[in-house]
């Protein structure tokens, strides 16, 4: 992958003058990002429906295409041709802006992710920080949608979502810090390189295991997934913040939710499971060489989709929490535990007890 991207880069700079070459690269990257966004939406929604079906003793989509793989494509086509209605009495600007903010945020955080060895849009030196910072902007879009809808259900959903995302960011951030402390870098490529002789989940002892569990719980809450889907809680608030949305505007919320899941799971896979790094134990063993034959993109997507499956598994098993219990869980359990855990991780990093 590294060679292909480098060749394209070199060829562009050799053929055109630097400005035009750069613009062309932007265009290619933009097209790739949008393509990935659309593909992820289609694949993950299909996956969600199939996972829910197998857990609920059903068959799931099975009519459009073999095993129903084109079902989500058909749904998307239907949503695209549907009228994008703006109800009376809404704040028109904010109402129409909100889905785009949510979508743009979801797309921007794709930038520092490393999809395969040397395949990355932007290897920024504060990559992890960038992701946590930008992904928290999506709450603005949700609050905007809830407020602008002029619907009480939407408002309640948006308020819940605000309280929830703001609080769960703390423990998500602290659990990420546990790995950062061990690695000593915020740059995603360096974090992955540091796991060459074993993923952090294997060589980080107790603090990384705890951090991993807290991270999974916190990102489930951050992406508004069940059992923390209070923002849309369909049995309480019909559909929460997107009650009034229809057509493509609704679809953007829906797609953004799944892209957000992908992003946080990719981040989790990068930090705890080694990103594109194959399964290595120690250095230079035969086992490592065998593992290296599997392409790095397969490793990355395999790990990410495993984490996505776990989050879907949560959704189709658990009842929903109540808003006060949700905040209790964060402030009374996750936050203290992750703070102590961070201290523990720091201690281990100082004493160099990790492998």
């Amino acid at each position, binding site marked *: 992958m590294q060679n292909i991207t480098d060749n394209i880069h070199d060829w562009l700079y050799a053929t055109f003058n630097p400005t035009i070459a750069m613009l062309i690269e932007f265009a290619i990257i933009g097209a790739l990002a949008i393509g990935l966004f659309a593909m992820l939406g289609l694949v993950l929604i299909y996956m969600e429906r199939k*996972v829910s079906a197998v*857990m*609920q*003793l059903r*068959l799931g989509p099975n009519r459009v295409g073999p095993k129903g793989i084109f079902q989500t494509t058909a749904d998307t086509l239907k949503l695209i041709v549907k009228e994008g209605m703006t109800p009376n009495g809404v704040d028109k600007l904010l109402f129409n802006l909100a889905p785009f903010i949510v979508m743009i945020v979801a797309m921007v955080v794709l930038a520092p992710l490393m999809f395969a060895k040397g395949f990355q849009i932007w290897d920024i030196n504060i990559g992890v920080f960038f992701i946590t910072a930008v992904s928290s902007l999506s709450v603005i879009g949700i609050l905007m949608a809830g407020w602008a809808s002029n619907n009480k259900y939407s408002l309640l959903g948006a308020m819940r979502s605000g309280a929830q995302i703001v609080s769960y960011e703390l423990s998500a951030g602290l659990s990420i810090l546990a790995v950062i402390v061990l690695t000593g870098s915020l740059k995603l490529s360096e974090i992955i390189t540091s796991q060459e002789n074993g993923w952090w989940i294997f060589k980080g002892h107790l603090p990384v295991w705890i951090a991993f569990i807290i991270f999974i719980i916190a990102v489930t809450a951050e992406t508004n997934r069940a059992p923390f889907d209070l923002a849309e809680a369909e049995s309480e608030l019909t559909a929460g913040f997107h009650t009034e949305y229809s057509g493509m505007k609704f679809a953007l919320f829906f797609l953004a939710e799944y892209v957000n899941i992908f992003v946080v799971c990719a981040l989790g896979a990068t930090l705890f499971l080694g990103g594109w790094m194959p399964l290595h134990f120690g250095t230079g063993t035969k086992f490592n060489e065998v593992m290296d034959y599997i392409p790095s993109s397969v490793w990355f997507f395999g790990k990410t989709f495993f984490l996505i499956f776990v989050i879907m*598994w949560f959704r189709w*098993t658990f009842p929903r929490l109540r808003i006060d219990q949700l905040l209790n869980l964060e402030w009374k*359990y996750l936050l203290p*535990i992750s703070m102590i855990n961070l201290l523990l991780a720091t201690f281990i990093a100082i004493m160099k007890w990790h492998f």
Partner: protein
Amino acid sequence: MGFIKNYLGEVLGAVKSLATGMKLTGKYALKHRKEKITQLYPDNRDTLLLPERFRGEVVLIHDENNEHACTGCTACEIACPNGSIKIITKFDLTPDGKKKKALDTFVYHLDMCTMCNLCIEACPTDAIKMDQAFEHSVTNRNDLIKILNKPGSKIRDGVE
């Protein structure tokens, strides 16, 4: 120390209860091929067997000679709670010259029928029964008003 022990016990108990539930759904996900309960309905139409007592719609039983057992006594019409059945009778002349009441048209309003089975119970000659057909959707409401006796059919001999 007791506080911390309680706190950790609480956390572990909670995790255990959640893991039990996840184990169950995970088990079903793995054994999906065996455990799935839904049927592919329109595909299995040929093999779909409904119980013989299933109440789908009222039919008038005709035998191979196009004969039925309805005497036109209107017991079913009286028994019907919502007027789904309308029996129109005529008078046939018997060979010995007497007038005899007989069925002219058996009108059945499927759109009003609640499948309560009271007409079948009321019929003294067991001329009607419940059929297993259940795909009743039509594009025109008038298609649901059915005439149950086939054209040219007559009462079976010996049925009083």
